[in-house]
């Protein structure tokens, strides 16, 4: 009786301990899940904020490098999940490594001879897995181009603007056929690989199972041999240890392979995060005040775009005095927009210098310099905000309703904004509830109002009225000369009618100034380029 009581007590203690362990295990899984999800949030937040912030701080010139653009595209495709995945794979690889090492330790103590048998039985399945992953990865890479083509073509079918043309041209079925072919091409090899891999896995699984059954039979024989001291409990313990070893080894390899594949993405991500700007801002840069417009001088400027040999500017000189209204005109590719890029120091000149109030732009504090500048780019931003915020974002440090209204009126935007249901509180985007989509011309006027709202000493307008009708254009330029009195205005245009009121017009061709003067002066030049182009364009309106 005493012996049975002892067994019962031991049994109760063991069951209680096992129960306690089960509870602890469940609890730990919950905590683990909590931390895993929490870390997903943390990684996601870090990357979702830091990657766009990094991209926004990179030299503008880098964006014109196709290689760098490709890098950005690649990083953008996965920065919200790939880094977390990579770190997570590592932690689970670590988990499996502990399990593998623990199982090896137990098996070495129990029956060292079994360990090589188990390891050898796992080799075929490892080989199949590594080969499948290698080939799968290779297909993915080789077919990356096909995948991108699929993406681009399917976007045509999903995008509102392209759908209109597709419908009118009747090319929907053509595009559907195309994406079907592309998609199938991408998948066909993967299916082929899946078929062959699964067949190989059947063989490797058979070898593995045979070894496991053999070991189990050997252990059972020992259980039946009472003299071996090997009980049923030992049988279950070692059997589950062998099971843990095989599954952990498989998962260890699988996670390692996944981590290895994500590694290339991580290399790209770190490459982007490590990108250093070529335009260096000096710590002791000269700050520029914003009381008066600065004097701007281009002195013998020569400029060649990176990775190009063509001179956009060749010994180019131009002076813009404070408060002067100047215009740069010329045909496409004459260098007008490059002039703006250099003036804003998006690029450094190849030779010569740009002086702001007599100081080389390289020694100027860009933050204070930009405070002097209001700009309307050809490809201006269309913020999906309310009209009011779309204008006020031109100067976020100044919340001035009166200025916003006058800027809007000067840009000729107030009229159509008053027709909006919510006036200046109208949301501008059909993508959001209650939002509307302004026309191209309306967007341009709103962007112009934003440039006016900045109330800066230098106003740069690059093709400011390209989407606006002739009457609107005339009114806007009349307003510009009123608003910009005592301030500098730089207008870039290929439409000669937009610049006739400028104090000085520069005709640019092949990176050189070929003519300059007022409209009247330029019109007097016999066989002059400006005169010819102006009359040619005016002819179109007659």
């Amino acid at each position, binding site marked *: 009786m005493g012996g049975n009581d002892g067994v019962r007590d031991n049994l109760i203690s063991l069951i209680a301990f096992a129960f306690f362990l089960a509870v602890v295990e469940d609890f730990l899984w919950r905590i683990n899940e909590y931390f895993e999800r929490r870390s997903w949030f943390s990684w996601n937040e870090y990357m979702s904020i830091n990657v766009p912030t990094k991209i926004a701080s990179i030299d503008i010139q880098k964006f014109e490098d196709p290689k760098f653009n490709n890098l950005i595209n690649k990083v953008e495709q996965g920065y919200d999940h790939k880094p977390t995945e990579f770190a997570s794979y590592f932690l689970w690889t670590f988990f499996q490594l502990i399990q593998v090492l623990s199982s090896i330790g137990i098996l070495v103590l129990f029956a060292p001879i079994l360990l090589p048998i188990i390891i050898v039985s796992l080799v075929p399945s490892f080989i199949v897995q590594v080969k499948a992953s290698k080939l799968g990865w290779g297909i993915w890479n080789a077919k990356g181009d096909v995948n991108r083509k699929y993406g681009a073509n399917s976007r045509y079918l999903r995008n509102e603007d392209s759908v209109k043309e597709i419908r009118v041209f009747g090319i929907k079925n053509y595009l559907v056929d195309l994406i079907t072919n592309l998609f199938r091409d991408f998948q066909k090899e993967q299916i082929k690989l899946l078929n062959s891999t699964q067949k190989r896995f059947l063989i490797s699984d058979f070898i593995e199972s045979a070894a496991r059954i053999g070991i189990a039979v050997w252990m059972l024989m020992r259980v039946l041999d009472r003299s071996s001291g090997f009980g049923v409990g030992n049988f279950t313990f070692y059997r589950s240890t062998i099971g843990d070893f095989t599954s952990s080894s498989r998962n260890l390899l699988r996670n390692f392979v996944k981590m290895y594949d994500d590694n*290339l993405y991580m290399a790209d991500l770190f490459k982007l995060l490590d990108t250093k700007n070529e335009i260096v801002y000096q710590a002791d840069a000269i700050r520029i005040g914003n009381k008066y417009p600065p004097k701007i001088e281009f002195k013998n400027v020569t400029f060649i775009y990176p990775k190009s040999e063509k001179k956009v500017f060749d010994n180019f000189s131009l002076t813009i005095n404070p408060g002067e209204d100047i215009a740069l005109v010329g045909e496409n590719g004459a260098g007008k927009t490059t002039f703006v890029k250099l003036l804003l120091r998006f690029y450094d000149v190849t030779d010569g210098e740009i002086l702001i109030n007599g100081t080389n732009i390289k020694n100027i504090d860009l933050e204070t310099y930009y405070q002097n500048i209001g700009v309307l780019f050809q490809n201006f931003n269309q913020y999906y905000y309310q009209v009011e915020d779309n204008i006020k974002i031109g100067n976020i440090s100044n919340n001035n309703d009166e200025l916003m209204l006058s800027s809007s009126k000067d840009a000729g935007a107030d009229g159509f904004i008053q027709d909006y249901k919510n006036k200046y509180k109208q949301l501008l985007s059909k993508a959001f509830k209650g939002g509307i989509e302004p026309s191209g011309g309306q967007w341009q006027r709103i962007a112009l109002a934003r440039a006016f709202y900045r109330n800066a000493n230098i106003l740069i307008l690059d093709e400011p009225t390209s989407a606006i009708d002739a009457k609107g254009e005339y009114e806007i330029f009349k307003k510009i000369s009123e608003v910009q009195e005592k301030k500098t205005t730089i207008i870039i245009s290929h439409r000669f009618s937009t610049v006739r009121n400028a104090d000085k017009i520069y005709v640019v061709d092949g990176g050189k100034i070929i003519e300059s003067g007022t409209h009247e002066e330029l019109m007097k030049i016999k066989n002059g380029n400006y005169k010819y182009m102006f009359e040619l364009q005016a002819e179109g309106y007659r």
Partner: protein
Amino acid sequence: MRYLKVKQLSEGVEMAKKVSKNKRKKNSLKLLFINLKRSLGLYWKIDKRSFLGLLITIISLALIPFIYSYFWGQALNLIV
């Protein structure tokens, strides 16, 4: 539509082998360890609490099954 027809599969397989070989060269173990070290450093910087929490729970969870099955084995030995 012929000009838009995608490349044939046989070409794709060859290309896959070639690209796979080249990319694998680039994706060396050394690079993996460099990126791993940096990622873990970043993990630590971004969320120390989750990193430590995961590490501790992972170590514990990896060992529990062995302890668990050992004690159940002992219980079975006592019964049979």
